[in-house]
């Protein structure tokens, strides 16, 4: 463990600050956004991925915005409470969310009757993409996803399947079973609410034969599981490359390779803000872009296993709305959980 001593001396820092103050055109400075601290709102409790991402990004965002950035947590109701709170804030650009926008915003709308629309939110960048992983404990005799399919086809009750209810993982599990013509109502599906953690623990402990959970959380537990399949259509060398992809598996079995991407996390604002105050939005977007691409930021985040890709608003909004539409299409599956 090396000590993280500050690398900038006080004098340099003061000099930099003075320089920055001089550089700003004086008459404009009072009205220039941002002229006070900016808050990142995280609709989850302290310590989760979003919280860690927000706190890791804060100093770099602060550097590129020229204002302090603080993180506030407002958990509850599967992000619904945080979303409702955010919708009540003024459109002044002083609060930005770091959110698992998909699947959480769609879930609150489709299953919890949230009174907002998917389009009310605008994605600036969603660098973190998690995918559902089908996995089994290393002690189990199962070795491939084809063995799982064969066993379930012979007898849907032969294996227990662990999943988080009303989640992207659940839709993927349902699509997997339906594709292979396995009766979901006869299969033994064990549901774990309260996030992916409990389902993962049950998988590692062997209480369920196969778990369908977001794969990222499995990375520290790699030695204790056998990954069976990744619900994705792109191979990622850092994300269980040894497991087959759902897209290939589906093609081989002649199933429609449809699936819902797992958590898509990153910076989110309101569409209302983007439309009403476009100049401030541009400043915020470009600061987030520069912070994300800042080499120091990339290094810092990589060390903490946090994603640093810049996809930009266009690709991020497309991915988010795609997830929403797929979930809406399969809303009946979700409700039957």
């Amino acid at each position, binding site marked *: 463990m090396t000590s993280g001593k500050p690398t900038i001396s006080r004098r340099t820092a003061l000099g930099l600050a003075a320089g920055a103050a001089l550089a700003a055109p004086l008459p404009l400075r009072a009205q220039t956004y941002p002229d006070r601290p900016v808050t990142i709102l995280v609709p989850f409790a302290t310590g989760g991925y979003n919280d860690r991402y927000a706190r890791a990004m804060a100093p770099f965002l602060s550097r590129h915005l020229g204002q302090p950035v603080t993180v506030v947590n407002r958990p509850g109701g599967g992000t619904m409470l945080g979303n409702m709170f955010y919708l009540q804030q003024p459109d002044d650009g002083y609060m930005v969310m770091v959110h698992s926008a998909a699947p959480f915003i769609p879930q609150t709308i489709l299953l919890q009757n949230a009174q907002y629309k998917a389009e009310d939110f605008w994605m600036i960048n969603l660098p973190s993409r998690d995918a559902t992983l089908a996995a089994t404990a290393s002690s189990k005799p199962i070795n491939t996803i084809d063995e799982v399919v064969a066993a379930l086809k012979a007898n849907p009750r032969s294996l227990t399947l662990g999943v988080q209810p009303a989640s992207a993982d659940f839709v993927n599990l349902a699509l997997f079973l339906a594709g292979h013509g396995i009766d979901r109502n006869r299969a033994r599906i064990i*549901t774990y609410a309260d996030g992916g*953690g409990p389902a993962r623990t049950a998988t590692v402990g062997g209480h369920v034969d196969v778990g369908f959970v977001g794969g990222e959380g499995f990375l520290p537990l790699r030695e204790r599981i056998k990954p069976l399949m990744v619900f994705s259509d792109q191979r990622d060398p850092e994300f269980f490359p040894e497991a087959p992809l759902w897209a290939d598996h589906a093609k081989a079995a002649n199933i429609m390779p449809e699936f819902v991407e797992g958590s898509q996390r990153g910076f989110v604002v309101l569409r209302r803000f983007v439309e009403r105050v476009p100049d401030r939005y541009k400043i915020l977007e470009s600061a987030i872009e520069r912070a994300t691409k800042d080499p120091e930021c990339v290094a810092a985040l990589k060390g903490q*296993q946090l994603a640093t890709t810049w996809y930009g608003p266009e690709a991020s909004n497309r991915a988010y709305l795609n997830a929403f539409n797929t979930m809406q299409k399969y809303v009946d599956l979700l409700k039957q959980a």
Partner: protein
Amino acid sequence: MIDLPAAGSAVALLAGSLDAWIWVIPGLLIGLVFGALPGVSVSMAMALVLPATLYMDFLPAIIFLTSVYTGAGFGGSVPAVLMGIPGTSSAVATTFDGYPMARAGRHNEALGAALFASCLGVLASYAVLFVLVQPLAELVLMIGPYEMFAIAVWGMVLLGSLGGTSISRGLFASAIGVLIGTVGMNTAGYMRGTMGIPWLLDGVPTIPAMVGLLAASQLFGLVNATFLVESEQDRKISLGRILAGCALVFRYPGVLLRGSIIGAMVGAIPGVGSSIANLLSYAETRRTAKDGASFGTGNPKGVIASESANSSSEGGAMATMLALGIPGGGATAILLAAFAMHNVVGGPRFIDQNRDIVYAIILSNFAQAVLLVFVGTAFVFAASTIVRLPLRILIPCVLVVATMGAFAIEGSAAGPITLYVFAVLGWLLSRFGYPVAAVVVGLLLGRLIETELLRAYQMAGGDWREILNHPGALVIFALMVLSLGFSMWKDRRRRLGDAASA
């Protein structure tokens, strides 16, 4: 199983770094203060200091956080003893006997016993951790829904008749607690009883509800009193009597040991933790004690049972976190976040490659437990002065602090509203002679029982024979029936004996 070279370098790591030490006492104090505020939980206290640890080195950061953890584990018992209001949900069982002791003027002894039981509980659980990190974690992984359900039912059965005189009233109160505990989304994703209020989606906020229930029933009970402790000469705060309370712990080593084992085991199970451990330990101690009937009226064994279990669950939770990288609850989730913030990934690989750091964390916790004796005594000494405050000043202060604590949980009015709604319910229940504690137990255990039963049912797929595949659960159920039968038989014999001699 102790890796001696690693232990040696752990000692060197701790001895060579001042940074690893300067944060221990501030951490303990922060934990004590926040833990003692009703409504501020252990994990909240840790979440508050988490951002500050970003600027420390890895080892000092973790030591700072575990000091807060240790401090808050005991801090919660101070208001539990002095006012019957648990500062955290892990101190519920401490109120059962601690508060009657305080009302009888034995607050010094009660706090001393609580403090010492806590320190020894922390020591014991970390000692277990030092020797058995891996086996303990493996054992925890073996506990599935059937076993968990059996344990929870055991707790519910033992605690069902808590504090009440009539069994039917106790059952009724527990049923209310269970019903309230099941509000919100269940583990299968169904929404129940939320009445369209989004703030109820995650269920009734447990901590403000619990504080409301207990505070109301206790504070209204004080209506005619002018001081917490009636007799003036008992209102003294005496170091000697605090130490006498500490000594009480040594008179009941069995209670302490059982509490520590239950705490370490239950604390290690993800998603259960100290708020259940203290209840189970209390219930078991009461069941096996010869003077079981005097529990609830100020028996120090009740305090020792509860406090040893809630502090030893810290070590258990740390075992699961260190060995598996699985956070058992809010507090260890924050520790894992601190790991991540320092570019360290917890889990099996971490413990293999950084045995010295793991040992340094454990050894530092031994030191924390010892330091807690001193810091805790000073804190208790200061906190006990409230028994000298006239109640007309104390009660409004407690209400304000409880309201603020309830607000701080989510930063919204949902907390205070819950607090007041449940305060009214608590007052009504105690006014008509229903045991409020049974509602709290139902609230804490009900959700666990429902969740695990539902999973067990899903696993069985409707076939009852599935339970035969879970011998662990069968053994727990068999033990439960046997021990209950034995207690009833003993009870009956005693009553027959009483009748014969009368």
